[in-house]
């Protein structure tokens, strides 16, 4: 469990960082952010990057910005930053509710929001939040910056469309309208473990009926995603136990669950149904 040797680079500006990545990426160089996923895989020698470009010293990536309609989270922002709401309204509360489900307290002090997206674990809470809320990210390289919808970013489990010389410099989450309700529910074997299934739902309640429903699931399939079939069930309806059950059933029918050591595909399908219904129940005041 000693990592293979690597060369360590510590840029202090974004310009230096993208230059370093452009130079070293072709020689198996990688970004080091919170290190909470990368370092364990290096210790196991499942990853043996020849160069590490540590972006923890890049000041300009360290902040959270709030614009008129969005929250912009820089690549240096740690999970722990969200323990308390970072912005007034539903989004801040949503993030602070969800963050407690990510790993354990010490890990949350180091791991980053953007690192989670770049890592693209199927059970990443931030990937689920980003997919459900239609977040966009900014990818920056010596060639310039571009934005990518998170749904375009994450290709498959642990795999993204970032070019090898691109740094995921920030993620942009749209602020949620005032009448937004949300609910999140996760099931894992132990506290802090990656979820076997989880769901985030949001919707607006206008005149007692559901508008703009979003139903996301994570940990069930290779990539967290919204389930349109369930959203259709909810749209324009009054919240009720029966409605929530129907939406959950729609998710169970639409999902194509994975199978692994901890949970068979069938079991995951059952869990998907349950976590969606419970997330919906939690959306009620």
């Amino acid at each position, binding site marked *: 469990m000693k990592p293979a*040797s690597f060369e360590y680079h510590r840029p202090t500006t974004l310009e230096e960082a993208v230059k370093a990545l452009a130079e070293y990426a072709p020689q198996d160089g990688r970004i080091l952010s919170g290190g909470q996923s990368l370092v364990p895989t290096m210790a196991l020698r499942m990853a043996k990057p020849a160069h590490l470009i540590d972006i923890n010293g890049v000041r300009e990536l360290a902040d959270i910005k709030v614009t008129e309609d969005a929250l912009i989270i820089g690549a240096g922002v740690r999970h722990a930053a969200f323990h308390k709401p970072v912005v007034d309204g539903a989004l801040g509360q949503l993030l602070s509710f969800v963050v407690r489900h990510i790993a354990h307290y010490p890990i949350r002090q180091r791991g980053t929001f953007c690192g989670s997206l770049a890592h693209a674990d199927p059970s990443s809470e931030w990937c689920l939040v980003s997919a459900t809320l239609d977040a966009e990210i900014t990818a920056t390289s010596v060639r310039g910056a571009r934005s990518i919808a998170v749904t375009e970013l994450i290709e498959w489990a642990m795999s993204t469309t970032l070019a090898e010389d691109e740094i995921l410099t920030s993620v942009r989450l749209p602020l949620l309208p005032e009448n937004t309700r949300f609910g999140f529910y996760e099931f894992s074997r*132990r506290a802090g473990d990656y979820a076997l299934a989880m769901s985030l739902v949001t919707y607006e309640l206008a005149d007692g009926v559901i508008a703009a429903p979003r139903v996301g699931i994570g940990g069930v399939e290779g990539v967290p995603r919204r389930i349109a079939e369930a959203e259709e069930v909810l749209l324009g309806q009054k919240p009720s136990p029966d409605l929530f059950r129907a939406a959950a059933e729609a998710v169970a029918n639409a999902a194509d669950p994975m199978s692994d050591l901890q949970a068979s595909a069938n079991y995951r399908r*059952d*869990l998907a*149904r*349950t976590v969606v219904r419970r997330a919906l129940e939690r959306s009620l005041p």
Partner: protein
Amino acid sequence: MAFIGRSVPRLEDRPLVTGKGRFAADVSFPHQLHMRVVRSPQAHGRILAIGTSAALGLPGVVAVWTAGDVSDIPPIDFRMTKIEGLEPYRQHILATDHVRYVGEPVAVVFAEDPYIAEDAADLVEVGIEELPVITAADGPVGIFAGTASTEPAQVRKGYGDVEAAFKSATHVVELDLSTGRHSAVPMETRGALGRYDASKDVLEMYGAAKVPHWNRDQVARMLKRSPSQVHFYEGHVGGGFGVRGELYPEDVLVCAAALRLGRPVKWIEDRREHLIAANHSRQQRHKIRAAIDATGKIIGIENEFFHDQGAYVRTHAATVPDLSAAMVLGPYHVPHYRTLGHIRLTNKTPCGTYRAPGRFETTFVRERLMDAIAARVGITPVEARRRNLIGKDEMPFERPIDALGTHVVYDSGDYAGLLDKSLRKVGWDELQMSIEARRAAGELVGAGIGMFVEKSGLGPYDGVKIAVDVGGKVEVITGAASVGQGVETVIAQICADTLGVDYTAVRVVHGQTDRIDNGMGAFASRVTAMTGEATRIAALKVKAKALDMAADLMQAAAADLEIVDGRVTAASGAKASIALGDVARHLLPVSRTRGEREPGLSAEGWFFSDHMNYPYGVHVAVVRIDAETGDVAIEKYLVAYDVGRAINPMLVEGQIVGGFAQGLGGAMFEELSYDERGEPLSVTFADYLIPTAHEVPSIDVLVTEDAPSPLNHLGVKGAGEGGTNAVGAAIAAAIDDALGLPGAVTQLPITPDRVKQMVVRRADFAASGIVQKPLS
């Protein structure tokens, strides 16, 4: 001032909580080399070639060894429970022609630092021709090597006329039950540092644990040295649990390398290695049948089981299957009994003991059987047990079988009494009412019990040396070992009370083979019973000598003197007194006052015992099932345990609570899984789930002293394993009860996925109209 029976603070805690502990990895010597083991990536295969030149070419690499380099070193021998025919299955320290599990050492690299060693290990090319893999112990018997089959031996025990028992039975209850492969994962992984001190011609090994003396003798034999030319040193040990401290290939390799390379050689196991290289345990399948009469009384039991030993037979030899065969009957009358245990080799990590070996497994099996008996005759699980328990007035109770080569005689016990106390403690009757009410409201809640008899105090001997110095400090030297369980404190308490000193004045030296010639170590919950009694015997001798000397000095009769708080005083209350340190000064070799007495205020004490003693206990679990997710919440858990005499009740409780956490791991979380190619799937803590502080509920503990052991003066029985023993059994019973499906749980660990399947089965039952009423 009595120390025995009091929860005095642990003597060993100060260095541990102030960061001054000295674990294996904390030991280093100048010029040391670091060893890295190259492990087989295949579960079974023939070694074609091992390429070492690339590794040897790496700067900083000093040597790379393969089997050919250690062909003069014999395989690792058996320490316990040797039965005929196991020799061909011993493990060599490096794989010779074949590899038989993923993780088997095939080569070792010695380098200047651990990073280089690991880099070099990656460069060693291992060419293996794959062979068919056996992963199941209950399938067809295969070939191990040559004419040796994968069933090296069978364990048979029994008595009475089992055929007749089944012929006369009103009912026969039959179950097929399995426990999952899991093992201990001590916080401290294994570690070993070998060093040859040429100035003294002594080979030293640091990082010893559990059985330092036996390991010293083996290393001496394997490396052709005399035992007195080999010293083993135990430092702090971050948990043993049966796994740590057995003699493994790596221990022998660091010693051999220290001798040959002339430099200290250090090896620290990493966690991934631990999960594939250290002993696994527990994987067993039992097909058990009970012949019972109309009232649920057992007439006979027949038990066939398959023990998955993994790829080789290690130091424990047949210990676990032997104990499984001997202990499965627990606290019940079983007039006729027959067991057949198949020891099976598979292409998985070799196995050994883990806390409550052979009992965690068989308590699950037996208590499942008791619940099935209750369901069959329509009585409550509690009643089924009561009808079969061995009575207090039948003690000592003899079973005509042996365990670990000792005759099984339950020395003392009041099983029904402890059951009553346990049920009262949890408020069983009210509990049943509240469970019924909650069930009626739609909740899946249930309660279950598990009863068991443990074993402890394995002999055959223990000896200690006690010496009082002129400063009045007492040193107790024992061949026992400490794996962190509180040996120093408990032995000091016994010594202090016997001698008449404060327990903090007693320093206990353990696990140092250069300080005492013989020692049995620490396993089988033996230390407090065996070493404790040897300590008491030695302390009595020291006391007698002190009083005899003081009698001269104080011009009093020895019989009129006593030792209080480290001073010899007159029992009459007369003021004059003399400190023990001063008595020791009068006993120095140069002292004129010594007279004809042997120099030194010191003595040796020996205690011999041919029998184990048998603590016993009851676990009660209350669980709630989430029908949708299959999640099981433990609402209440009681461990009641009779240890005869609790020297330090706080330490007994600590043993029970910690033991429970490990039992819970085996019952619900931990499983060392393999795929069909023999690839281990649980090689990190992301996949091998140990319960954390969040998953382990706080439990109730009831320590009783109703049945002191007649086999030692203090009445002590071991306390190490009762917290683990019945966790699988009690939780399984509670889950059955919550589901209203007697016999639903047939397999450990009980994972949410598996519980969910039971919930589905329950719904199918309900739909089919078959009513399965829980018995309460």
